[in-house]
């Protein structure tokens, strides 16, 4: 899923200098699961903003509403009443949701309430880790199911580099070396020989380097 974290209340409030009616829009999918922008978190943000403006003695009305997903038009529709009412909207969806809501409700302004960070998963309570960069040409079959693109600091295809020590990456003692993990995994899978194969230069045109991507499916697009 998509992992995000909240912007500070101050950063958000800095953009709300002259507004009297603010609508905070939560999203009930990925960002709810990672405790960044779901029902609960967007309610907390709304209260924090109320408090912030109260301390500044500013009269501001704030409404809050969460929809199932902000990345599909049919769910965004449900936000209409509260957004029409507001002078400005703060969305606590990922960057995709913010863009969709902004497009739908022009000329009203929609601001991001989160920093959208990566595609990943929780690995222990309170810890989320990146797992995929969406490179568009998956090599997990060659690397024992551990992604070198997202998890190696240099996205090497022929790792580990000379900075790998004690299972950790050269950039930090808190970051596991993805290639040590790949080595260990291939050993378990009985595929260690493949570490001697030269992985050729990757075709990055399927990743963001090829420009904004789209997928068109005739079978769905009837």
């Amino acid at each position, binding site marked *: 899923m998509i992992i995000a974290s909240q912007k500070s209340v101050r950063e958000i409030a800095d953009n709300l200098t002259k507004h009297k009616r603010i609508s905070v829009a939560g999203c009930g999918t990925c960002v709810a699961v990672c405790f960044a922008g779901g029902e609960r978190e967007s309610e907390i943000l709304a209260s924090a903003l109320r408090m912030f403006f109260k301390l500044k003695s500013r009269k501001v009305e704030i409404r809050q509403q969460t929809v199932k997903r902000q990345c599909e038009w049919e769910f965004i529709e449900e936000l209409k009443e509260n957004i029409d009412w507001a002078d400005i909207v703060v969305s606590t969806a990922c960057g995709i949701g913010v863009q969709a809501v902004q497009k739908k409700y022009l000329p009203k302004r929609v601001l991001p309430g989160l920093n959208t960070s990566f595609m990943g998963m929780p690995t222990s309570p309170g810890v989320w880790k990146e797992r995929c960069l969406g490179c568009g040409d998956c090599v997990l079959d060659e690397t024992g199911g551990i992604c070198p693109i997202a998890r190696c*600091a240099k996205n090497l295809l022929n790792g580990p*580099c000379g900075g*790998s020590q004690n299972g950790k990456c*050269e950039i930090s003692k808190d970051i596991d070396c993805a290639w040590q993990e790949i080595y260990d995994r291939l050993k378990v899978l009985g595929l260690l020989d493949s570490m001697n194969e030269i992985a050729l*230069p990757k075709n990055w045109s399927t990743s963001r380097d090829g420009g904004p991507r789209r997928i068109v499916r005739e079978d769905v697009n009837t």
Partner: protein
Amino acid sequence: MKSESRLEKLLNAGHFAVTAELGPPKSSDSNIIKQKANILKGYVDAVNITDCQTAIVRMSSIAAASILVHLGLEPIAQMTCRDRNRIAIQSDLLGASALGVNNLLCLTGDHQKFGNHPESKNVFDLDSIQLLKTVKDMRDDKKFQCGEEITVEPRFFIGAAANPFADPFEYRAFRMGKKIKAGADFIQTQIVFNLDKFVKWMETVRELGLDKKAFILAGVAPIKSAWMAKYMKNKVAGMDVPDEIIARMEKAANPKEEGINICVDIINQLKEIKGISGVHIMAVEWEEAVPEIVEKSRLKE
């Protein structure tokens, strides 16, 4: 001969080679390069020119290498994958060759996190092994990475780095084998302080026959102080400094002299190891130490 490299000629003739390192300045001052080059001249067979080492902006390695060519020294230009994509890399290689640079060391490059522009984007379009193959294909097949033909190809004596002290240890010799398969003609290793581990690594290297397929130059370096020894042990990724060396440095009345003595001791032991074709002296920002090390270890006789 695969190139016009003098280093290649020397190694092929069975000469025990000595290379050193020269870090270009953090400025446009060519005099610094000339001063450093003058210290090394006559003592070493070739000089590595680092490519924005530790991700700190310095004068371009190819430009500095070209200055060395004019001074009559044999440069080994270093090329990392951190700052350039395959278009820029190949373009720079054509230029380096045209400027008379005949040796190239292919590296992945240090991550920019600890450099002086930690907010930069990195590239890593290729990794060191893919870079080696690209340089070899340009030379031997006269082809760009995309497959297009090159009319006048860059002919480099191709080098790679190997770190016997990184993990997983049992894979390290194999990874060097992969680099040789990809195109490396010579190898320069990480600085050797832990000789026992290095000897063990060399055993696997010989079992795999890799010392017959490429020239292996063992990395060495003089340490300036006990503090520096500890810093390298604890803070520099991929370094292995045994406690005995730290103890020797702590006890020394004249640490600089002791650092040089340790380096000479290590070189003398390296000379005895089968499969070692030379040494690479990395006296970073201490080029003055190189002539003394070369003389004391009788590398030029």
